[in-house]
C-alpha cells in the first residue's frame, strides 16, 4: 500500500497501490514538482494511480516489480513527454 516519502524527497510506491493512493500521490507530486518516483517495490497499481503518473509525468526510477507494469505500462510512462503519450485530438 503506499506512497512513502524517503529522506531524499523521492516518492516510493511500495506494494499494491490502490485507487485511494491516487489522491495522495497527486497531492505529493503537486507539492514537490520535480520529485522522482521510485516504483521498484510496486507490485501493482490501480488505474487511477497510473493515470496520475500519466498526467504529471514525473521522473520514474527503476523497473516496477509487477511484470505487467514493467512490460506494458513502464514504456508508456518513460516515453519522452514531447512526442508524448498520444493525446486524443479534441
Amino acid at each position, binding site marked *: 500500500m503506499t506512497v512513502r516519502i524517503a529522506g531524499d524527497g523521492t516518492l516510493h510506491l511500495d506494494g499494491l497501490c490502490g485507487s485511494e493512493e491516487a489522491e495522495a500521490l497527486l497531492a505529493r507530486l503537486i507539492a514537490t514538482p520535480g520529485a522522482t518516483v521510485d516504483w521498484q517495490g510496486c507490485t501493482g497499481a490501480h488505474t487511477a494511480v497510473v*493515470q496520475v503518473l500519466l498526467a504529471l509525468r514525473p521522473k520514474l526510477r527503476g523497473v516496477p516489480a509487477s511484470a505487467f507494469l514493467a512490460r506494458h*505500462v513502464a514504456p*508508456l510512462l518513460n516515453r519522452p513527454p514531447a512526442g508524448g503519450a498520444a*493525446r486524443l485530438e479534441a
Partner: protein
Amino acid sequence: MNEFIEQFLIEARELVAQGTADLLAAEERPRDAAAIDGAFRAFHTLKGSAGIIDFAAMARALHAAEDALSQVRSGAVPLTGELIGRCLTCLDQVVRWLDAIEATGEPPTDAEPAAGAMIALFAQGDSAAPPAAGPIAAGAREAAPAAFESWLERCLATASASKARCALAYTPAEDAFFRGEDPLATVEALPGLLALDLVLDAASPAPEEIDPFRCRLTLFIASSEPRSQLAPVFAGLSGAVEWRDLAPPAADPGEAAPDAATLLIEAQIALLRGPRDGGFEGRRASALHAAWQVLRASGRALEADALERLAASGATPERLAETLSGMLAGAPAASAAAAPAPPPEPVIADIGARSLRVDVERVDALVRLTGEFTVLKTQAAHHARLAAAPAGSGEAARELAARELAARLKSHHEALERLVGELQHAVLGLRVLPLRHVFQRLPRLVRDMSEALGKPIRLVSEGEETQADKAIVEALFEPLLHILRNAADHGIEPAAARAAAGKPETGIVVVRARRVEDRLAIDIEDDGAGIDTARLRARAAARGLATPDALAALSEEEALELIFAPGFSTRDEVTGYSGRGVGMDAVRVALARLGGRVSVHSRPGEGTRLALSLPVSILKSDVLSVEAGGQVLGLPLEAVVETVRLPRSAISRIGAARAFVWRARTVPLINLSQSMGLAPAPSPAPAPAGEGEALVVITRLDGQYGGLEVERLGARMEVMLRPLEGLLAGLPCLGTTLLGDGRVLIVLDLEALQP
C-alpha cells in the same frame, strides 16, 4: 433411446422447421413483427430444451442467435439478409447435432468447437457494436478512431503483429473507478495480450485541477486471441469498446507448415481458373476435393463445409475460385458468414420422420374394425368345429353338412373381404401426410440457391395441404430438389437478362399440388427462359445418344423428352465428396419407382413446366404372378399388355439379343429367369409351353414394348406391397408380399430390368 430424448428430438425438429419458416417469412416481410417474434420464440424454446437435456454447447450457440434476434425485435439492430443467413446456419448446426443425438441416443461430447464457431459467427458484425451497458464517453469515442488507427498501424508494423487476431480501443466510463472497476487490471487479465497503449483525453487541466478519481483514459489493446475470447470479459463493464478483427495467423503453429496449405489452395484456385477443355470437369472435381481436405486439415472446418455446400449448389468455377481466394486472404469470419449462400447437404434428415400425427377418429375406426374381426374369428372357430364333426351319419347327411359348411365359409369369406378392404383403407389413411411436410423444406433451399447463383429467385407453393401417403411425400423431396436446381440454374435467367427481356427481376418458381381423382398432380413451373430444344438436340448428338438425322426428325415435344435420356445430364456434379449424380433421368426413375410419371412442357422465353403425376398411395397394387427359374415373381399389372404363346420359330436372333414380331412390331425378348440370374427350372413339370413354344408376357413401359419369357403364368392378384428395405433395397423390385401358401412374392420393377 429413452422416451425423453425421443420426444426432445421430435419437438426440436419441429421447432427448427418452424424457426426456418419464420426466418424466411421475416426476410420477405421485414415489417412483420409476428415472423420475427416467431423466429425468436423458436430459438428461445430450442435453447430451453437443450438446457433440459443438459446439452450446454447447443444452448450456448442458440443463445448467441437468440440475442441477435432479440436486438432486432427491440429495434436496436436492423434485420439484414446476413443476419438471417447466420440464424439459418445456426439451425443447420442444430440439425447436425439432432442427427448425432438420434444416432447415439445422447448429446455429442465434442460439440464445443462447433458451438464456439456459432458464437463467433454472431459476435462479429459491425466492429463498432457496443457490447456493454453504461455511459459512453462521448468525446473520446468520436475522436478515438484516428488515434486508434495510427496506433494500430504502428503496432502491426512490429514483429509480433503476425500473431495479432484482434485489437480494441477501450474507453471506460468517467465514473468507472467509483463503480469499483480497475481498467488496467481488466486488461492485465486478458488472454494473449500483445500490445497496450494508454491515452488521456484531450482536456489538460492544470495539476491542481485534476480529479484523480475521474477516469480519462482510453486503452488501446492488441491481442493474439480472437474477439470471441475477449468480448465476454467486457460484458458488464462500463464504457465503450471499439473492436478490430485482424487477419489470423495461417493454421496452427506446430502443425504442417502453414505455407504448404496456402500453396495447395492457391494451386486449386489456379486449376479452377484454368482452361475449360475436356478434362476440366475432372480437374474441377479434384481441385474442390483437395481444397476441402486442406481446409479441414487446417482446422477450418466451417469454411470447408461452406465450400462444399457452395459447390453442391452448382456455383460456377469462377465463383468457387473467388471464394477460395477470399478464404486464403484470411477473412475466415467473413467467408463463414457467407456460408448462408449454399444449400445444406440433406442435413435436414433424409431419414423419414419416425413418427406420425394421427387424427383420433382414424384410430377409433381401427378399434371398431378390430371388434368386427373378433366376431369373424369366433365364427371361423365354429365352422372349424362343424367341419371336424359333421352331424349325422350316412352319405347323404354328410353331403348335406358339407354343402352347408361350404355356404357358410363362402359368406364368411365375403365378410372377411369387406372387412379387409375397410382395414386397408383405414391403415392407409393413417399413413397419410400433407405435402406441407416436404414443401416446407423448399423455401430455404431456393433461398440458398438464389444466393449461390447470384440470381434473385422466389418460391411460391400452393396446395401444401394436399395429402398423400407418407412414403410418397417423403420420396418427393429429392426429385423436387433436382427439378428446382435445374429451374434455378438453367431456367431462371440472371436479373439483368430478365430486365432486358421485360420480366421482373426476381424469378418465380411455383410448386403447385392438387389431387386429381386417385392421383396426385404436382406442377413445378418457372417463368424463366424455357428450354432451348436446339441445344438439346446438339447436346444429344454430342453425347452420341442418337444420330443427328434422328434428332432433327424429332418433334418439339419429343425433343423436350431428351432431358430425360440417361446420361444426358447437362452438368457434371459428381464432386467426389458430395457424390450426387443428377439429371432428369434420375428424377424420372425415382418417380417411376413410386408409380409416378413426369412430363415436361416449355415455352421459349416464357418458362418451363414439369408435370408430375403420382399415385396417392403406393401400397396397393395389381399384380400378375408368373414363374421363372423356379421362383414366383410378380409383374405390375399396369405394365402388362398381353400374354402370348410363341412358336420358337417366330423368335429371331439379332446379335446376342432376341426379338419377335407382334402386331407388326418388332419386340425384344428377354428370358426372365436369365435376366434375374435364376437357374432355369430343372424340367418344367407339366410342360407349360410345348417343346416348340415360349410363353411370353408382353409389357409396355413408357411407350416401349418388350417381351418377357416365363415358364408359367399365375393369377392376377391385388396385393399390399411392403417396400424392400435395408440390404435388399437395391434390388430391382417394387416390393414384396406373402402369398396364401406362405411363399414370398417379389414384385419386379420392370424399368430396372431393362438392359
